[in-house]
Every structure is written in C-alpha cells, then in structure tokens.
C-alpha cells in the first residue's frame, strides 16, 4: 500500500540543515501584476500556512497569474513573495526543490511514455536515483497509473494526463504544492480519491489549489481565499466564509409551470424536481424581507400553490455564486435555461442554475 511519508523524513535525508527554524509560511505581500491594459493581480496579500488552501474565483479572476508568480515563473510588478521570511528570488533552486507545481495548461513531449516523463521530471528535480524508482512506483499506484506506465502520454485520456501531471508535481514530496485546476478532467471517483490524497498529503505541508469547482475544496480546504478581478476579496475557513451568506440563501417549493417566472425574477442557484411534479428552488436574496417580497411578486397572488420561502443553510457554493453573479447569469442564459421549455425530466436531480435578473438583488463584494 503506497503511503505518503512525512515531509521531514525526505528532507532530513537529503538536505541536512534545511529543517532548522522551519515555519513553512508563504507570505504574499502586496503583489500586483498587469498585462497591457488588464490588471491581472491587484495588491494581493495573504500568508499561506500548512494545510490545504482553496483559491476560488471565476475565470479571469487572476488565480493562475497569482500561482505563476508563486511558482517563480512570473515576476510580480510590485510586492514580494517570501518563504519563511526569505524572498523566493533569493532562494533560487532551493525554493523550487521544496516546491511542486501543476500548471493549468500542461504540455507533454509527444514521444514520452509515462515512465520516461516521470524519470525526466525526477532528474530535473535532482532526485537521487535510488529514490526515483521507489517514488515513481508509489505515485503510480496512488494515482492508479500503474497499468499505463509504459504507454505514451499522448495516447492517454485527459484525466490520465492530468494524473500524470499531478504525479510529477508530487515527485519530490514538496513542502509547498501549488496546483492550478488539478481536478479538471478527472471523473468523480478520481476527484474524490484525489481530494483524500491531498488531505493526507497536506498534513505538514502547504497546499494551494485553484479551482472554480467549489466542491473540490469545500470539504478539504483548511482555509479558502476568493479572488475577483485580480483582488483578494475574502479569506477564511469554509465556515467563516459561508457566514458571509448567512441569511441570504432561501428555499421554496413551487409548481413546475411557475419556474420560468422564478428563474427570471430570482437569483436561482439550484433546482430540484420533486416526485410530486413540483420544483424545489434554492435562491439567493439579500434579506428575509427581500426574499418574501420577491416570492410574493413572483407568485403574483397569495392563493398560488407555492410554499413560502424558508432560510436554507448556506454552502460554499452559495457564497461563490453570491460573489460572482455574472457566472450565475451566464449559466442561466448559456447552458441551463431553455427559453420556451421548462422540462425537468430527472426528478430528484440537483442542478445549478440561476437568473440573470437575480443579479440585481445582491452580489456585492464581500
């Protein structure tokens, strides 16, 4: 059974002295970065401590740019990134040796097999030959890649390629692991396994995962940071962040034929078709008064069969949709809402949806 060794055992063997006075803190101090006319990262400050950190944000929020600066691939325009008090620029190779990185867009050399690739990555990381084979074997087993060990990477599925990328990031048992959208392309089972693996891995390490799949970090993240338009707009544990939308999440059950009206008027985040033909609607609204008002307005009359809204316990996903109303609108308009039809064939299935109109009812920055 493959296991994850404690970070200190690996480092002790290879870098005597590096363990002294380790706090394992990555300090991001007022860093900014612009591309032509776009401010990609704007004065972001945070201190990453051991544990899993979820970096949430919509597309274009600046997550990848921030991670690339942490990885030392890009230089910040202003501000500084320090690891245990030392600027990462001065640590040079020593920083990248304790560091694992999975980029969002990840290319492979077409002629490489999984074995070739991992051995090459191990050589670049300067792993001793005696450790390389053992570590590769462990990772292949951990990530269910043993069967494709000798296959060319270009012939693997997207999910498998992603897992090979994850394996290379974990090769040197890094104490600081940065992963940009690590779960994209993984099937649900793999995602759960990966989350568990990461939870175990992060016991005495700093792990930063960027994603816009909220469920990937909801249960495993020690702390979360939320970025919007290049700025860090919220930071805290899942429980702390969820409190930001306390009292703003509502639920009611309505007749299915009234759903288009609800979707138009309310900021719907989730729908569920009930067995009796009605639809359970979860939506966001500023306050109880606003929720009630919207309910009344959308129903039009008291005698409507719909039930009165009741507060629902908020989740991280609700916070995300509260903070990124444009995504909700986009989802509603572009993917899930079908004008003129209102079919919910699979009773009991959850689906994320939203209302463009609903955006006007909230969504201010936290």
């Amino acid at each position, binding site marked *: 059974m493959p296991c994850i060794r404690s970070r200190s055992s690996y480092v002790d063997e290879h870098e*005597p002295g*590096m363990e*002294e006075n380790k706090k394992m803190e990555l300090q991001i101090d007022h860093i900014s970065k612009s591309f032509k006319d776009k401010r990609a990262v704007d004065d972001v400050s945070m201190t990453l401590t051991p544990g899993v950190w979820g970096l949430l944000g919509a597309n274009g929020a600046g997550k990848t740019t921030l991670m690339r600066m942490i990885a030392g691939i890009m230089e910040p325009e202003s501000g500084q990134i*320090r690891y245990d008090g030392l600027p990462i620029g001065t640590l040079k190779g020593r920083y990248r040796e304790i560091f694992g990185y999975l980029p969002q867009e*990840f290319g492979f050399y*077409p002629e490489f097999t999984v074995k070739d690739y991992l051995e090459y990555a191990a050589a670049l990381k300067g792993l001793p030959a005696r450790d390389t084979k053992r570590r590769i074997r462990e990772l292949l087993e951990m990530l269910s890649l043993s069967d494709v060990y000798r296959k060319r990477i270009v012939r693997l599925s997207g999910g498998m390629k992603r897992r090979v990328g994850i394996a290379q990031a974990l090769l*040197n048992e890094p104490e600081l692991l940065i992963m940009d959208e690590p779960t994209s392309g993984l099937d649900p089972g793999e995602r759960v396994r990966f989350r568990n693996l990461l939870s175990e891995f992060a016991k005495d390490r700093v792990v930063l995962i960027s994603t816009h799949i909220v469920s990937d970090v909801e249960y495993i993240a020690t702390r979360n940071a939320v970025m919007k338009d290049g700025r860090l707009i919220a930071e805290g544990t899942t429980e702390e962040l969820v409190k930001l939308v306390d009292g703003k999440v509502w639920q009611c059950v309505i007749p299915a034929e009234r759903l288009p009206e609800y979707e138009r008027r309310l900021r719907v985040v989730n729908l569920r078709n009930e067995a009796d033909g009605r639809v359970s609607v979860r939506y966001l609204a500023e306050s109880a008064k606003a929720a009630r008002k919207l309910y009344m307005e959308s129903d039009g009359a008291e005698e409507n069969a719909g039930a009165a809204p009741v507060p629902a316990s908020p989740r991280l996903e609700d916070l995300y949709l509260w903070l990124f109303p444009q995504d909700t609108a986009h989802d509603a308009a572009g993917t899930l809402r079908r004008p003129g039809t209102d079919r919910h064939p699979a009773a009991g299935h959850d689906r994320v949806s939203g209302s463009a109109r609903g955006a006007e009812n909230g969504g201010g920055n936290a």
Partner: protein
Amino acid sequence: MKTETVREQNVSASSADPVSEPEKNGREAGRARSGLYALYRKEMADHLHSGRFLIVLALILLTSYASLYGAVSSLSDAVASDSDYIFLKLFTLSGSTIPSFTTFIALLGPFVGLTLGFDAINSERSEGTLNRLISQPIYRDAVINGKFLAGATIILVMVLSMGLFIGAVGILKTGIPPTAEEVGRAAVFLLFTAVYICFWLSLSILFSVLCRHAATSAMLGIGLWIFFALFMSLVASIVAGALYPLNDAATVGQVLDNYECQTMINRLSPYYLYSEAVSTIMDPSVRTTNLVLPQQLSGAITGYLSLGQSVLLVWPHLTGLLALTAVMFAGSYIGFMRREVRSR
C-alpha cells in the same frame, strides 16, 4: 523600511541556518549541473530519435558519398598535374557534374543547424512544456544552454563522422595514407565546419526565441540561408558598384577600392567567411586571402604554406565565425531570460 526588514530576515535566517554559505552554493551548483545534464541528455535523445534529424543526416551522408565519388573519379586527372596533398583533394575536388565536399557542406551545413534549432524554444512554448520546465529546480538558463549544447554536440559528432567517413573511404579507394599535415588540415577544416554549422544553430535558436511559431522561425532561417548563399555576392557587387563605380576610364585605385569594398561586404556573410577559410586551409598553395598585385608577387618563390601559416591566414575568419555564433547565442540567451513565459 521594507527593504530593511527583508535584510534583517535574511540575516537572521542565514545565521540560524547551520549549513554554511559555501556549502549551500556548492549544493546549488550541483543542482544546477544535474538539471542541465538532464536537459542536455533529453535534447540529445530527442535529436537522435527524431525523424527530421535522421532525414537530414541521410541527406548529408548521401551528398558526402556523391562528392567523394566525384572527387575520386577526377582524382587521376588532378594528380597528373599536381601529385601533392592527394588526401586533401578528396575533400576539395569536384567531379564533372558533382560539386566538391567542401562546397556541399558550405551549402547544406546551414540546413543542419537550422533543423536542429528552429523550434527549440517556440515549440516548448506552444506545447505548454516550458511552463513546467522552468518551474523545476533548475536555473532558467539551463533550458537554453542545454538545447544549444546538445545541438552543438550533435553537430560535432556529425561533422567528425563525415570527416572520418570521407577519409576512410578515400584511403581505401586511393590506397595512399595521409601525411600528418594533411590530417591536421582536415581537422582544422572539420573544426571550421562545426563552428560554421553552430553559427546556424545559434541563429535558429535566436529565431525560435523571437518568433511565436516554429514555421516563422524556420522561414526566417531558410530566408537568411538562401540570401547568404545566393544573393549576398550580388548585393556586395551592387553596393560596391554604387560606391566605387567602374567604367572604361576607371583607374587602378578605383578598381582596388571596388574590389576591397566587395570583399568587405562579402565577409559579413558566414557563408563567404567559411568558404574562404576552407579553401585556404584545404589548399596549401593559397598564400593570401586578399588581392595581390604583380609587384608584390615579383621575387616571390612559388611553394606551399605550412599548416601553421595557413591557420594564421584564416585566424580572423575563425574568430569572426565564433564571434557571430556568440552574438547570436547571447541574443537568444537574453531574449529567453527576459521574456516572460505566459500560458499557451
């Protein structure tokens, strides 16, 4: 204030760290070397397994054999008039329709260099592998150094193999072993050839750093290759004609100026530099690379130059080619180090 805080932290961190600074630096250098070595090995393997390289190698070997065949077929006629330096004639003699080996290499050598380097960096960018590569614990310049060193090694091995091939087949065909001086001249010729092709390698790497697409960098390289090989002499003659016009009433001084101007412009071309140097090294009877007036020849004894004297004649050509290679590589190095690596 912030700077001071950072410095304090630096000082406190380094004083707390029991590993001494020289030891840290040594470890750092070791890491850098192992990264460079891994990259170098990977690049070498890539070249040796790539179909593209094997096709170019086959083309070069084929032309080497053809030129050798041409040289051997016309060797008996050449020996009848001058029986010295027969071994060198294998490299410089051309057949009735086939150019000599040195001419072939001057024309096709750049192709090898361009093939090895035209997509060195931009393909890594477009395939998204550069991102991961530079996030590994290696110095960033190891990427470009590794690529250049691997390409240069391949060129050296290839040139040496070609030289040995021509020499071995030539000895078998003629049955005459080369003298030490001939071997020395052939070695200098191979050195020149390697430097010449390395120039094209560094130029193609520069284009691969500057251009986003491999096709663009390949076209630029091929364009320059054709320009230097075919059109540079035309340009030199036009420019010299414009600056120092030659008409029926031209004086000797004007003719000399025109010639010198043409030579100067031509020598900007690596193709010309290489061809001139090689013809000097491989033909000991060449006593100068510049214009010689009849009065300078008066009293001179006809004879061959020693290897050392021939090398002295082409020393500026060698330094010129090396300088051009270094400038191109420096350009690609600076370009690569300064350019930000963005997502695909």
